[in-house]
């Protein structure tokens, strides 16, 4: 990899906007919502300054933002939108349609919790509500990753074997508003990485009907085909990462720290850094399994990372009220069950509505986890990390 430029200091949102600009998008349709807003503010400025040849559509709602993206993508454009929380909830209907119509839209989600009570801070309730929508869903650990994933997302979404929308998740405020040194790619490298591919679009010369009506005699097959495309996108994701002209360490479907550890902590997003830091600093016998590609869920890779563990702790930053397990825990447990592995799985619910996960809290918990693993305790537990850090 050539490093022609020194790293630049960017917020997560700035990094996303830069990646979108370099990806030469044609259409951005967006509506403001905290903590996503500065992504599209920046993009509107790029367009106004002539740095990005695109149409910026200031839609009147997130529902229309995604709808305009579906229309634009159907017409052949590379398009982008970004949202958070209530905005994502409002898009919910169109998310399923975007996936069902197989349009390669890329969306950044600066994760924020859902009302009520209203709260602008981070947790994963927003995207978990759309986890069955059929989108490829990627979680980022840091600002550099948010930058790289957006560029990769366009290549993945537009691959003819995938042709699905992709959501790039970055933790609200923790990443969206956090400044880190980012090493951007050269514009030409991004252009070379993202060639324009031919696909079926709305065109008078070869007319197609998109979004037709399906009765019970066809619907099942169409949905299975779509689900299979999502399943197989894992392999394409790997190819996309492999071909990426920038740093790709730690960008596989799952990133595992300390693979031989007795306790495995499974998590999504920026929390991985905190867990790894504490485990490393205090020398805990704890490994961290950072799930980067959440949908399709990388079953083989997560299973391989957990198969030797004495105890598994799944960090869920969203509740699934009334369910048998919270979202990420549910996936992990199903996986272990299918593999015939009977292990104690703890659910660690943390960070709801932006409650900080401090190193002190993590340290205490990891101690407890290791102790339980060494004692051979088999019961599953649910832990709520509710301690409030001093403001």
């Amino acid at each position, binding site marked *: 990899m050539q490093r022609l430029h020194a790293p630049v200091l960017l917020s997560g949102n700035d990094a996303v906007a830069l990646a979108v600009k370099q990806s030469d998008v*044609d259409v951005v349709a967006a509506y403001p919502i905290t903590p996503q807003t500065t992504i599209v503010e920046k993009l509107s400025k790029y367009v106004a300054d002539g740095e990005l040849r695109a149409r910026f559509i200031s839609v009147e709602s997130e529902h229309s933002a995604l*709808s305009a993206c*579906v*229309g634009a993508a159907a017409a052949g454009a590379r398009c982008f939108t970004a949202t958070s929380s209530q905005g994502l909830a409002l898009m919910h209907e169109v998310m399923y349609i975007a996936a069902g119509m197989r349009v390669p839209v890329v969306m950044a989600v600066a994760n924020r919790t859902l009302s009520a009570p209203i709260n602008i801070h981070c947790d994963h309730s927003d995207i978990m509500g759309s986890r069955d929508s059929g989108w490829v869903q990627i979680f980022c650990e840091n600002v550099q990753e948010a930058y790289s994933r957006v560029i990769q997302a366009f290549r993945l979404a537009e691959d003819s074997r995938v042709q699905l929308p992709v959501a790039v998740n970055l933790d609200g405020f923790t990443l969206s508003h956090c400044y880190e040194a980012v090493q951007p790619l050269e514009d030409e490298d991004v252009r070379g990485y993202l060639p324009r591919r031919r696909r079926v679009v*709305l065109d008078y010369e070869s007319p197609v009907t998109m979004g037709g009506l399906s*009765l019970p005699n*066809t619907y099942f097959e169409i949905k299975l085909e779509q689900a299979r495309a999502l399943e197989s996108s894992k392999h394409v994701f790997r190819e996309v990462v492999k071909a990426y002209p920038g740093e790709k360490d730690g960008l596989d479907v799952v990133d595992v720290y300390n693979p031989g550890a007795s306790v495995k902590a499974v998590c999504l997003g920026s929390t991985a850094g905190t867990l790894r830091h504490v485990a490393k600093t205090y020398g805990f016998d704890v490994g961290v399994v950072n799930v980067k590609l959440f949908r399709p869920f990388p079953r083989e890779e997560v299973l391989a990372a957990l198969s030797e563990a004495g105890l598994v702790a799944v960090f869920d930053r969203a509740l699934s009220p009334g369910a048998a397990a919270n979202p990420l825990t549910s996936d992990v447990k199903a996986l272990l069950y299918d593999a015939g592995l009977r292990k104690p799985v703890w659910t660690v619910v943390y960070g709801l509505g932006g409650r900080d996960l401090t190193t002190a809290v993590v340290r205490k918990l990891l101690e407890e986890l290791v102790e339980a693993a060494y004692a051979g305790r088999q019961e599953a537990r649910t832990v709520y990390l509710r301690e409030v850090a001093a403001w």
Partner: protein
Amino acid sequence: MVKPVQRLDELVDTEALSPGHSACAGCGAMIAVRQILMAAPHPLIVVNATGCVEVVSTQIPHTAWNIPYIHVAFENAAAVASGVEAALDVLEAKGLGRRHHILVLAGDGGTADIGLQALSGAFERGHRFVYVCYDNEAYMNTGIQRSSLTPLGAWSRTTPAGKLEEKKDLVAIATAHRIPYAATATIFFWKDLVNKVRKAFTFDGPSFIHVYAPCNRGWYFNPAETVRLSKLAVETRYFPLYEVERGVYRINYFVATPKPLEMFLKPQGRFQHLLKPENSHLMEALKQSVDRRWEELVVLSQRGKQAYAAMQG
């Protein structure tokens, strides 16, 4: 300015919509769509909201469309069209595609109720497309529930005792966005309709046409009467034909001596209760609403004449 069409054979000879779709016999909406498509310039893309037209023309693995067509959802046709328009604009500039004319088709529910927000947003942003609301005055695809365009007094499955509220003034709503062109039309007056469509496509911005489309299944009338009812709707002043060009109102078919409103209501099952003496107050309210609307239009169009004369100097 395009030359007005005078004869049927002046319309394009390609049928953008194939016969053999599954619309009901006597469907007013499909007659309207066919006339509109014959008048619309090509290359054309159709953006359709969920509703009867979508359901009857796109059943997988078949399609009735000979031109590019997209349906996404119920409430977002104007937003989808915004995306299509913006995309082709940029792609043409980048040498990656070309601009098409864009026609949006949506029913009264998809336009005046659930789709109003997206429509208002698209009007305000000024996307270049022609938006046609085919108005059959209720949610026909789900089985005749009232919409905000269901007329005062009409029966529907959710107004079993007759609707107590007036129909929304869609053209006024559209015009309030300062769009270049808005009009009403209906299928009997096909020349008026096709020429309005042709005119609408000439503006560099959004245009709106409110097309009255009788529905025999929802209004309970003989399917052979579809076109005649569209004529009676105009001749009784129930549905006036007018246009608003850059804010200037013009009545296109001046109904000097209206036929009695009962002539329009009688053939329709949905109005039968209005004809009973005990519901005369509802009938009276409907008549007053029709008269008031016509008088308003006359005033607006007179103002329009003065404005036009002033413009001519």
